[in-house]
């Protein structure tokens, strides 16, 4: 695993997130559920807790966008770059953006929102890309069945280095 230079991380364990818009590819409930499950990937192995908020400030802001979308890192249409997220911090820090030119899916092998969101939230929490092929934080998208998804030891070691283990 890798962390970002300076090891940025949240100095609190209770984090808020906000979904500012939706992809037309999935019903809103499915998006909400995929996002919730993606945060659980990380809260299951650390003391972190995630709370969804509406109409107020959130640590992690989640948006679907196309091409240039105001952060200086434009998306590139269908394929190639699927999403990106920012390391922990104020402002854009922690925010996760998903390229809405992709075809987002819940179950099938087209770009699976849960898998990509879980990866992006790793960045939102302070993990950089891992060069371990089966790690969630490997930069290349690879479909695995979300129902049987398990966080790799590499990812677990990385996130627990930043936030510690979940107390039993």
């Amino acid at each position: 695993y890798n962390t970002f230079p300076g090891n940025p991380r949240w100095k609190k364990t209770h984090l808020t997130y906000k979904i500012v818009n939706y992809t037309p590819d999935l019903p809103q409930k499915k998006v909400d559920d995929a996002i919730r499950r993606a945060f659980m990937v990380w809260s299951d192995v650390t003391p972190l807790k995630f709370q969804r908020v509406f109409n107020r400030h959130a640590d992690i802001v989640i948006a679907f966008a196309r091409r240039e979308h105001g952060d200086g890192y434009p998306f590139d249409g269908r394929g190639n770059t699927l999403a990106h997220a920012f390391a922990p911090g104020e402002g854009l820090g922690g925010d996760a953006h998903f390229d809405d030119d992709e075809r987002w899916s819940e179950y099938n092998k087209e770009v699976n929102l849960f898998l990509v969101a879980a990866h992006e939230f790793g960045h939102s929490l302070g993990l950089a890309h891992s060069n371990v092929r089966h790690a969630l934080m490997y930069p290349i998208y690879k479909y695995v069945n979300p129902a049987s998804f398990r966080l790799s030891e590499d990812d677990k070691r990385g996130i627990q280095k930043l936030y510690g283990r979940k107390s039993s």
Partner: protein
Amino acid sequence: FPAQLQQESQSNTAFENVKAYLDKFYPVSAQPKSLSLEDRIKEMQRFFHLTITGKLDAETEEIMKQPRCGVPDIAG
């Protein structure tokens, strides 16, 4: 000569694509400025555990075509 011109244009496009990929995911700001394109390809090949040739071989090109996260592999 038309055939040759087409080859050159394809090779220029490939070069531009490689450079764009490396600029985005292996930014120069994160590395010593003196690194050549070959060195930067090697850096990428090292990250992905590919055979280190410093050239745009089929294996490297295949990785570059795959869908991926937009965050750089080398954090600047």
